[in-house]
């Protein structure tokens, strides 16, 4: 806040190369701000620019590309998990990809959420780009990405369509559950734990009931309950993000 002082050439102690104080009517501070604006500016990458145009909001696009579960490391980790599932499926015939995909999505979606991983959470609640919008866009993109990865990994020749695509339904349910838990408890970790635990319980109960795991992802009987869970949890998450709670 003493910066302006230096700009008027008050520093006689420096050996100036040429003579001359800055003329009184030249505003060097304004000049510096113009230089700094150019030098300090960040140029968004192509993904962010595209997202900005598609979402019609540069702020929303920036919030999207800074999603923790959309960072390159996370995406690569998800891809590796699903690739491992694919290899395991080829080896054993058990549809591991179908089993892993919902878990991967649940984790990714819980980690799109704020408290616990977003330090500037409180401030984000006062922004013109509402945090709910940010959350919605993040969740949709993470889900779409994980679905795409899952589809790529499960496109094994000869596999039944129900297995290839069937896991999308439980994935939706488990992700919604993870999100609802995260928003209710205001903790991303709680959301991940809930999602993974629920899915594990589901798979294990199906296996103990029928001796196989495939029905967990392929049975059409389970589709309505899955969807019901997805819708209910979605509503809970929506409601939980309406009024942020405070402690002071």
């Amino acid at each position, binding site marked *: 806040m003493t910066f302006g002082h230096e700009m008027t050439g008050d520093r006689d102690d420096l050996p100036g*190369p040429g003579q001359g104080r800055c003329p009184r009517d030249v505003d060097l501070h304004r*000049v510096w701000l113009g*230089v700094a604006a150019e030098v300090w500016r960040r140029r968004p990458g192509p993904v962010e620019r595209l997202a900005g145009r598609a979402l019609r909001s540069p702020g929303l696009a920036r919030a999207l590309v800074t999603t923790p579960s959309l960072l390159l490391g996370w995406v690569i980790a998800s891809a590796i998990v699903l690739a491992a599932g694919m290899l395991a499926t080829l080896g054993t015939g058990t549809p591991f990809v179908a089993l892993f995909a919902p878990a991967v999505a649940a984790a990714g979606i819980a980690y799109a959420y704020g408290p616990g991983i977003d330090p500037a959470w409180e401030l984000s609640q006062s922004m013109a780009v509402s945090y709910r919008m940010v959350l919605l866009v993040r969740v949709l993109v993470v889900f779409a990405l994980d679905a795409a990865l899952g589809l790529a990994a499960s496109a094994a020749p000869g596999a039944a369509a129900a297995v290839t695509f069937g896991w999308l339904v439980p994935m939706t349910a488990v992700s919604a559950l993870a999100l609802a838990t995260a928003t209710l408890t205001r903790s991303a970790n709680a959301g991940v734990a809930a999602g993974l635990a629920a899915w594990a319980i589901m798979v294990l109960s199906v296996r103990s009931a029928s001796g196989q795991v495939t029905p967990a992802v392929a049975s059409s009987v389970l589709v309505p309950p899955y969807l019901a869970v997805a819708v209910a949890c979605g509503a809970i998450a929506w409601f939980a993000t309406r009024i942020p709670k405070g402690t002071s």
Partner: protein
Amino acid sequence: MDDDALIAAMADGDDTALRELFARHAPWLAARLRPILPAAEVEDVLQESFLAAWRGARGYRPQGTPGGWLWGITRRQAALWLRRRGPSGLPLAVLASHGGGQPVADPAEAAVSRAELAEAVRALGPEGSAMQEVWRLMYVEDRTVTEVAGLTGVPEGTVKSRAHRVRQLMRSALRQPVRDGGER
């Protein structure tokens, strides 16, 4: 840090070096530009010049002088600016100095050169000093040595040696337009 080190740091992407360089040099560069440009345009030219310096820092060779380098960039930007505005934008004084309606190849360059020349002339000494007088009589008014000797009341030999000195001073001032910490 000395200016050379600052420019090297700038080449490495250190924006705080640019900030320091700006603090040191922008004032005198502004003073140099002001006679040939209005204040608002001095600001614009300076902004473009320092951005050009930021981008071109890698091309700086330490055996040049930092001040000279910066002035070189600035005068180019000033000439660009003047050229862009067209002849109507040039200060009247510049046009008037080319009396007789002689067309000038590049009025923009001429304007900037005029600023440099004016400063070199100032380096000859204060107004009315012996050197300034010789400069004015011999090179501006184009008089002969005999006439100058008569007008100033000194022997012709003295006039000749003063003229020689003036040429020396002007030559070195124009070749190296900027003094750098006294290492002339």
